[in-house]
């Protein structure tokens, strides 16, 4: 990793013992703060008011179809990779109201759902999900019809990203250029340096190297009790990111995979994957860029109706429903839609890739289908990888 001279100029050091000042600074600016927390044995994004609530010493073990947390007994505060939550939920809530309409003397009063957003800060977002947020912004806000709710929520969102020291076996950010370090896209970006080997151990060396990546981030950073970063701090970061980079497995070249997939639309491998795929849609739900939504009306006896927009998935048969029936009737066609959309057609539609290599779809697939491995195999020979766990 190259070290620009401006790097040191922009980086500050925050002692781990002072992390509460960050939470306080965010609260003082009206942000509700979400941070990693353990729920049901999984790292989720949960409301947090201070560093004491962070899952100290917790480390994740992720593999196709499996996720487990173990307590390492150490003092590392962010020693895990991504959980099932991502920033997607902040831009595009799983359920949102579109409008309410109430009967009104022979007519209807149509009230658009408010699009103002409360300020939310997320502490501990990973570089790949910051990249995913940029992708989602393109889709939801960058087109001819910007989603006003998403635009308002994006504006009200403050992201404190954590660069990764402990990637999971499912992480593929290096192949997509989305991690383990982060050069832009967050408000603040931090990396944890020298966490104590034992919880409650000497916190002396435990600190965060913090940089601002936006004016709002710079303003918050200026309010924190930081000190100047030294060349040694910068070296520690470089070494940690270097080790993480080496630990992350490479996946095949995304451009080669994209072309190969589109050249194998009717290959037999899709059927083979479909024989394992449960078509549950978990992959699309945990995907930080999947944006599909459906719109449904509900009305009550008084005649008041509520129109709701909610997440949907191309694994549902109804996703492609026409009067003549669903277009993508078979599981093979639905799996192919997901894989080709993420890895190939997204590029034409939105000018970016739809996959950031976060690995969530691999971990949370109940049968452990590895999208990257399957796509590489299909793109190469048209056959599936036969690496599934069932």
């Amino acid at each position, binding site marked *: 990793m190259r070290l620009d001279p401006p790097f040191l100029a922009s980086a500050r050091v925050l002692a781990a013992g002072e992390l509460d000042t960050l939470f306080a600074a965010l609260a003082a600016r009206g942000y509700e703060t979400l941070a990693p927390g353990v729920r049901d044995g999984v790292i989720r994004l949960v409301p947090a008011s201070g560093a004491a609530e962070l899952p100290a010493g917790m480390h994740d073990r992720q593999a196709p179809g499996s996720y487990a947390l173990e307590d390492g007994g150490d003092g590392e505060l962010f020693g895990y990779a991504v959980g099932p939550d991502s920033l997607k939920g902040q831009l595009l809530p799983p359920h949102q109201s579109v*409008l309410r309409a109430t009967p009104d003397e022979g007519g209807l009063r149509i009230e658009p759902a408010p699009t103002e957003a409360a300020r939310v800060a997320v502490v501990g977002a990973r570089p790949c999900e910051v990249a995913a947020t940029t992708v989602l912004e393109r889709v*939801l806000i960058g087109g*001819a019809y910007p989603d*006003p709710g998403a635009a308002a929520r994006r504006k009200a969102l403050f992201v404190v990203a954590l660069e990764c020291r402990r990637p999971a076996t499912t992480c593929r950010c290096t192949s997509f250029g989305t991690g383990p370090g982060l050069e832009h896209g967050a408000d603040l970006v931090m990396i944890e340096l020298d966490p104590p080997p034992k919880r409650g151990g000497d916190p002396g060396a435990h600190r965060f190297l913090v940089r601002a990546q936006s004016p709002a981030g710079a303003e918050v950073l200026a309010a924190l009790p930081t000190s100047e970063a030294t060349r040694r701090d910068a070296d520690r970061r470089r070494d940690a990111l270097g080790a993480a980079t080496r630990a992350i497995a490479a996946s095949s070249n995304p451009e080669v995979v994209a072309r190969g997939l589109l050249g194998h639309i009717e290959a037999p491998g899709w059927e083979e994957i479909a024989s394992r795929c449960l078509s549950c849609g978990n992959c699309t739900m945990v995907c930080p860029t999947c944006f*599909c939504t459906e*719109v449904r*009306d509900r009305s009550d006896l008084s005649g008041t109706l509520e*129109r709701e927009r909610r997440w949907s998935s191309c694994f549902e048969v109804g*996703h492609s429903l*026409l009067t003549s029936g669903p277009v993508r009737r078979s599981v093979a066609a639905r799996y192919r839609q997901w894989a080709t959309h993420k890895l190939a057609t997204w590029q034409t539609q939105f000018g970016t890739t739809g996959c950031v290599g976060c690995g969530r779809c691999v971990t949370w697939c109940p049968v452990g289908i590895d999208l990257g491995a399957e796509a590489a195999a299909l793109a190469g020979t048209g056959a599936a990888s036969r690496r599934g766990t069932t």
Partner: protein
Amino acid sequence: MTNASSAPAGTPVLVPLAYRVVARRHETADVTTLRLSPVADAVAPGRPGQFNMLSAFGVGEAAISLSAAPDATGEVQHTIRDVGPVSHALCTSAPGDLVGVRGPFGTDWGVDDLGYGDTVVVAGGIGLAPLAGAIDVLAERRRYGGGRVFVAVGARNPDQVMLRAELGRWLAAGVRVRVTVDAAPAGFTGGVGLVTQLLPGLGFDPARTTALVCGPEVMIRFSVRALVDLGVPPGAVRVSLERNMQCGTALCGHCQLGPLLLCRDGPVVTWNDELATLLTENER
């Protein structure tokens, strides 16, 4: 073809404007034409080939094409086949009833650059509705010396022939209209057979023809093949395609056809090899 225009800043893109049904015409047993007039604010005038998202409040929304070119009344016209909950509620709404309108969305037939050479319009079933506004414009142009216009209409049976008033008007303006049905009772004097069988006899000059095609996807594929076989350049064929649509604004992901988002890049698309491949691949 012209692209969809952007929404004014701050418009809640998924919230419809209130319109009232001002006229209703039953076309066939299951097809109804509605004229809708704005209660207060109106949507921007659309171009033939574009669609609106129509709300039957409490039931849901559906993508429905404009079935007439915009006129001075500010009303919008839609021709709807009753096939499910939303379309049923729309078809059975009566004058005075409220309907929500958002739009117009998507690409259009690009009629502005037509009417110099020949134009062939091929419609199957409800597919005539999205084409009607374009034929209106071309028929008017024909009346004042514009290019020749040929319309081939396919319907399941004689009772399913819709937009009869329009068909008569187009004939009167000098448009060559031919109708064929899949099956007819004894005594029916019109054509029986596939709409593609009408094409060789229409008398257009393939090399200077632009074709506009809308109908069921198989019908579109066979019609394009027949047109190209007759010598119409593939790039002179425009088709209107359909996928599930939940938003019309490139936000919901449901209208994908491979690399296309049909609410944004369609519904009207110029024929090319890539499109031909997409439509022959199974379950795209």
